[in-house]
């Protein structure tokens, strides 16, 4: 086959067999060429840049950008990388974080992931990221690379990734497309995540019509490190080498920059076909796993001066961020980059999102040792450049300079939008349409209602999903799926543990984004507290519709303020976060879904509290901590029974949440509570069902008068159901009194009678509850 390399518009390609580049390559778009041809039209609009943004790039450079530069600016100034629509609002997190809240923070927003000290010289890092759009297009690979990406983010902090979580939102469980998307997403997380050797310790799955065309796939990861060992993404030390290691760079995952290719090559039969590769990246879990182990060995041998993972925007992002955060300059030679495809242009190499790659800054004297570790793990590694103090990022390709830019202008000086926002006029009508007028069930209907709700798509057991994830690997998992929070031991040598929970009830956020987000915070905080851990830090993954819709922008702003104000009141910092916009189908935005993750710490993992009662020989009593109000707007009862969403969410009482967390921490330490479960969606009824089924044990209770329906199904926050050994009742009462914690005795655990007996209301066998709660997803998905 002869080489059919051709040129058009200054870019080149070769045939698939053209190993000999020199024969077929003609001039590429270089800095010199760009300076000499200022009038050349460029496809900036197709790359998503506005007129004024393109003009700004020209003004920064004093000339038109080269195609490689245009590709870099366009991906780095995209919404995903630059946070241009959210930046002005996210600043509020910084404004509301006090010095006291910052005390334990080693790294915060802006780093790959926030880092907090957790005691005994240990630190922890955690983050949640979205991979929504790719997961709709290609559920398996979208979800798989979402897990891979978040694990590399944690690794880039110098941390050992120890656990992963997933926050999933799908259309109605019985919708046709959900049968395509959900099994694919779960298989992707399972197939990729399980091979990485990081325990999956939980997450959440919700269904709602608004996610039918826009499923949400958020992936979280926790890492641990010695507090003294933190690495940050900066390239310091003039003369230090830039090492690219991991998989080869290919044409997969080239999103925006493919416009350059198609604009240039649309007529080229060969070039066009060559580029028809998936815009969703394809992950290789084995390469990822080896990359993780290799990187941990590099850390352990102290061979790394700075590090960044290659995620969105690939090398363009890693080089510009490393350079702008360090000594300000870097030279890179793209001819050294190992490629998967032939004849890749500089723009393609720079913006490729091929997975399983990292970029490290290495002292010259350590380069040989660095490469030796990579060789041991069979990980390709090459020196691609050097740190300079010129203040310029200079990138050459085929011996010519194709990029010469101030790196900060690429990485940090992207556009900032002050998009209009206002409360939608429809919000008043939504809030006025309360659940007060919905017919409520008679007392003799409550037993059936308990089972009906337990089987509903949002409340049912998610074992069909979580049983596809490895929760045991590495032997540090103390609590995992089916517990309120996941918990891992930090290391074999310590009893120190980390707990993590993430939550968002988007129905409540829709009714009132400010309060709804505070309720998400309160629930994640409470879930961590329920496990006996003390909440320490907060992250978020803010999933919203289009920022160009003022109503969505209002939701976003309210959510940020609600979360920041809530964190300030609780005294725990937001250490990082992620924003995902444009989650909508046509003009229909998703329910605002600000997922809030809370990280907690526990001194002794043996003191953790799980959801199972009746496991020992002691008799136990059940208590409800917290007070119940008649709060059913936005509840699961309103949704399942009446298909209703309206009114105002339950009141938030963060002081009550804090008090509750204090009681739980003390109770765990003193061993006063044998089991606990937080009350949230579905209220007390659902908590009782879950505890009885998980414990395979019954309970006999009396619900407080006057209204058993409200007692069982209200979704008032700041409540936890706990089991207390009868031998410790006095101490428990004293603990509650010391904290002024409202507490009411509900009844007893009945190991010899496997039924949930609610005096005068219902009497249901554990077997019936198990069938209702666990049968739903297997019936739908096989």
């Amino acid at each position: 086959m002869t080489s059919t390399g051709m040129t058009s518009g200054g870019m080149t390609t070769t045939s698939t067999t053209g190993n000999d580049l020199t024969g077929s390559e003609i001039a590429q778009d270089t800095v010199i060429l760009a300076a000499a041809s200022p009038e050349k039209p460029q496809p900036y609009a197709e790359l998503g840049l506005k007129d004024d943004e393109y003009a700004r790039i020209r003004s920064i450079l004093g000339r038109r950008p080269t195609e490689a530069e245009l590709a870099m600016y366009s991906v780095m100034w995209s919404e995903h990388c630059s946070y241009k629509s959210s930046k002005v609002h996210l600043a509020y997190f910084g404004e509301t974080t006090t010095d006291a809240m910052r005390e334990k923070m080693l790294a915060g927003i802006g780093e790959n992931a926030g880092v907090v000290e957790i005691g005994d010289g240990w630190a922890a890092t955690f983050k949640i990221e979205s991979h929504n759009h790719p997961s709709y297009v290609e559920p398996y690979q979208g979800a798989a690379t979402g897990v891979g990406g978040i694990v590399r983010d944690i690794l880039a902090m110098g941390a050992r990734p120890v656990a992963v979580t997933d926050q999933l939102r799908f259309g109605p469980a019985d919708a046709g497309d959900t049968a395509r998307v959900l099994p694919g997403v779960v298989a992707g997380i399972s197939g990729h995540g399980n091979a990485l050797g990081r325990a999956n310790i939980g997450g959440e799955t919700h269904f709602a019509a608004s996610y039918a065309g826009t499923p949400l796939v958020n992936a979280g990861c926790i890492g641990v490190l010695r507090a003294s060992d933190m690495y940050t993404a900066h390239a310091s030390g003039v003369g230090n080498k830039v090492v690219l290691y991991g998989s080869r760079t290919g044409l997969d995952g080239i999103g925006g920059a493919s416009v350059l290719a198609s604009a240039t090559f649309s007529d080229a039969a060969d070039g066009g076909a060559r580029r028809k590769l998936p815009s969703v990246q394809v992950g290789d879990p084995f390469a990822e796993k080896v990359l993780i182990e290799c990187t941990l060995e590099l850390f352990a041998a102290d061979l790394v001066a700075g590090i960044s993972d290659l995620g969105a925007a690939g090398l363009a992002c890693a080089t510009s961020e490393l350079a702008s955060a360090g000594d300000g300059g870097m030279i890179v030679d793209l001819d050294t980059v190992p490629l998967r495809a032939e004849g890749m242009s500089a723009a393609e190499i720079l913006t490729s999102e091929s997975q399983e790659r990292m970029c490290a800054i290495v002292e010259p004297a350590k380069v040989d040792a660095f490469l030796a570790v990579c060789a041991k793990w069979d990980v390709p590694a090459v020196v691609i450049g050097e740190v300079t103090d010129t203040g310029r990022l200079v990138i050459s390709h085929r011996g010519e300079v194709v990029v010469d830019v101030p790196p900060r202008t690429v990485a940090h000086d992207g556009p900032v939008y002050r998009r209009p926002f206002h409360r939608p006029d429809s919000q008043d009508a939504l809030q006025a349409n309360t659940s007060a007028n919905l017919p409520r069930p008679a007392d003799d209907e409550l037993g059936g209602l308990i089972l009906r709700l337990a089987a509903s798509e949002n409340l049912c057991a998610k074992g069909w999903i979580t049983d596809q994830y490895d929760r045991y690997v590495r032997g540090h998992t103390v609590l995992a799926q089916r517990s309120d929070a996941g918990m891992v031991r930090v290391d074999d040598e310590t009893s120190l543990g980390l707990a993590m929970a993430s939550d968002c009830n988007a129905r409540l956020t829709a009714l009132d984004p400010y309060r709804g987000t505070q309720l998400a915070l309160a629930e994640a905080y409470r879930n961590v507290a329920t496990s006996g851990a003390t909440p320490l830090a907060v992250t978020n993954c803010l999933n919203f519709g289009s920022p160009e819709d003022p109503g969505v922008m209002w939701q976003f702003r309210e959510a940020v303020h609600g979360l920041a104000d809530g964190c300030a009141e609780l005294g725990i910092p937001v250490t990082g976060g992620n924003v995902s916009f444009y989650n909508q189908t046509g003009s229909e935005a998703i329910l605002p879904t600000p997922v809030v993750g809370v990280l907690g710490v526990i001194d002794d993992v043996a003191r953790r509290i799980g959801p199972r009662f009746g496991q020992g020989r002691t008799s136990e009593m059940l208590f409800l901590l917290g007070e119940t109000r008649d709060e059913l707007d936005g509840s699961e009862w309103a949704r399942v029974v009446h298909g209703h969403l309206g009114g105002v969410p339950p009141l938030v009482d963060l002081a009550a949440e804090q008090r509750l967390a204090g009681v739980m921490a003390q109770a765990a330490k003193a061993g006063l509570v044998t089991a606990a479960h937080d009350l949230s969606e579905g209220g007390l009824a659902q908590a009782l069902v879950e505890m009885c089924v998980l414990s395979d044990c019954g309970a006999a209770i009396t619900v407080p008068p006057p209204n058993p329906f409200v007692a069982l199904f209200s979704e008032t926050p700041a409540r936890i159901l706990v089991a207390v050994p009868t031998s410790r009742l006095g101490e428990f009462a004293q603990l509650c009194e010391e904290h002024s914690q409202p507490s009411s005795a509900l009844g007893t655990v009945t190991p010899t009678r496997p039924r949930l007996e609610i005096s005068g209301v219902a009497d249901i066998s554990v077997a019936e509850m198990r069938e209702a709660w666990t049968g739903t997803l297997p019936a739908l998905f096989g």
Partner: protein
Amino acid sequence: MTVRIGVITFPGSLDDVDALRAAKIVGAEPVSLWHADADLHGVDAVIIPGGFSYGDYLRAGAIAAQAPVMRSVVDAARGGLPVLGICNGFQVLCEAGLLPGALVRNAGLRFRCIDQQLTVERTSSVWTSRYRSEYDDVRPILIPLKHAEGRYVATEHDLDALEAEDRVLFRYHGDNPNGSLRDIAGICSADGRIAGLMPHPEHAIDALTGPGTDGLGMFSSLMDSLVGAAS
């Protein structure tokens, strides 16, 4: 006498640290063995851990079975060295020809991570002797299981031979989680020294991090055998 238990790490191994921890808990000296190193460093037994060796890209365990360290393990095993393959390690032992049969895709086609009850079918082996006294051969043990390719298959002839020679070590008790023929969860060589099973005893050595401590028996059994032989 110090008993040294080697645990192989292939690229893609996952549960090597868990196996090393199990060795340590029963009082052995844990020794890491690297896939590319043919030297077994004088260990008294070898555990091939769970994971996805080399990504399991050809067939589960197929490439690992050809690794330099495995050539040494095969030779040593034929000479009587106790060898235990867990999950991916079981697949490797079958691929290496040390145990008959193969592990194929689960009947349900999905990865499953569950706590599984097993019956111990043979307690006269270096890996299961402890279950004789502790469990009276009757009570099932509870061990985590996590795999997508754990359905044990073999020819009828091989299955009959395994049963006739008392080489079935463990069977699934209650529900068969993956469609394994004759509910087989683990098998061994005729002398009981080479053993493979899909469930993970190394994840059941501490009630804090596993469903209980039923897995410890396998590692304690080995210690009994090795210490007894030396004394």
